[in-house]
């Protein structure tokens, strides 16, 4: 069965390793924080200027001067720090942030990503996404495998304006975990109960299937 948002977040959480500084995008990526193992040391960075981001505040403890990049009220954990936007992107551009997890509208088999603009329809802007994808060594995309019309979001070539070129390393969808390789999307894992055939049908870009594909362990 296809995973729900929490399922995708739970699977991605396994990619977060001890000692990682992690930037989480808006949407499914935000949920990842809930599933990271508690026995490892991880810090979350938000590009509006906080490192060591904690959970949402308890009701009545919201502080308008303490938000995340999604403009949600948050808390800061012990060891946290605040800084300006230039320094925040020094962390990102300087590759001090180890892992970036973000959503996407489309990913191409060469690692191109589009997630900021639908010409003539939705023009909200790229926020920090272009800096993140141009800089991060390790980028994981969290998204549904197909869009609302059932069209694949894993393409030969992106049709929407790009956010970054050749940068996505891994994709976790409601159906599968895939690695972006020079040869195309390499299928690594299936969602529990989802067949390879289903994934094939939902993937427009080149899909590489070597050996048996195990189910995700979530």
């Amino acid at each position, binding site marked *: 069965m296809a995973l729900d948002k929490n399922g995708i977040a739970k699977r991605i959480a396994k990619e977060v390793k001890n000692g990682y500084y992690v930037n989480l995008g808006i949407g499914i990526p935000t949920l990842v924080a809930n599933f990271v193992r508690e026995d490892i040391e991880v810090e979350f960075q*938000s*590009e*509006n*200027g*906080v490192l060591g981001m904690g*959970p*949402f*505040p*308890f*009701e009545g*403890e*919201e*502080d*308008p*001067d*303490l*938000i*995340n*990049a*999604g*403009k*949600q*009220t*948050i808390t*800061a954990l012990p060891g946290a720090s*605040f*800084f*300006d*936007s*230039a320094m*925040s*992107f020094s962390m*990102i*551009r300087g590759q001090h942030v180890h892992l970036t997890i973000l959503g996407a509208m489309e990913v191409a088999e060469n690692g*191109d990503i589009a997630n900021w603009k639908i010409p003539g329809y*939705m*023009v*909200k*802007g*790229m*926020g*920090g*996404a*272009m*800096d993140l994808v*141009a*800089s991060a060594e390790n980028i994981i995309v969290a998204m549904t495998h197909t869009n609302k019309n059932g069209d694949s979001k894993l393409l030969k070539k992106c049709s929407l*304006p*790009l*956010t*970054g*070129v*050749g940068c996505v390393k891994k994709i976790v969808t409601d159906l599968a975990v895939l690695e972006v390789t020079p040869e195309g999307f390499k299928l690594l894992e299936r969602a529990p109960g989802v067949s390879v055939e289903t994934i094939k049908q939902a993937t427009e870009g080149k899909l590489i299937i070597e050996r048996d594909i195990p189910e995700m362990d979530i």
Partner: protein
Amino acid sequence: MINKKVASVEAALSGVEDGMTLMLGGFGLSGIPENSISQLVKLNVKGLTCISNNAGVDGFGLGLLLHKRQIKKMVSSYVGENAEFERQMLSGELEVELIPQGTLAERCRAAQSGFPAFYTPAGYGTEVAEGKETREFNGKMYVLEHAFKADFAFVKAWKGDEAGNLIFKGTARNFNPNMCGAAKITVAEVEELLPVGSLDPNQIHIPGIFVHRIFQGSNYEKRIEQRTVRKK
């Protein structure tokens, strides 16, 4: 000590004219110069170019200027919270230049620091880089980006002193420090304006040299855009 204190928001904004380019601090509605924005509305200056990470929401922040059609052009990284904005943009009334957030911050910092231009990887291979010089360094591609030029910068700080020294709070810091000294005139409004000597010189985020006018703000609303809580 060079005293930067002005008595009122009117004095702080004196010299603002139609057609000027303004920088405005804040991320979402956090850390925005509420008093200066109100005064811009009151002055009813038109044809403004506003450099600001976001464009406010309907009825607050820069949304107030949009509502009165005072803005000719927005230079931002993310503008998706504002129906009036979208309407003006799609109808062509409003010009919009969207640029990556880190590039926005650094173009402010470059103006502040006297760098005319720098190379950044953000936007390479995308429409953001169209028409711009690109260049390879160490096997990676970069885009040449230039310092902003602006007439006024409006920033909001938590504490300040009469010498113009500023301390920001939490994530309300954001773009505010990077915009100080990045325009011809920098106007800082503060929640608490203190006499000189009140701030620890070791804890000042922005030295007064980057600030030309400082005033005591009032009636801060500090609206929360996405109130998100967990249960006890």
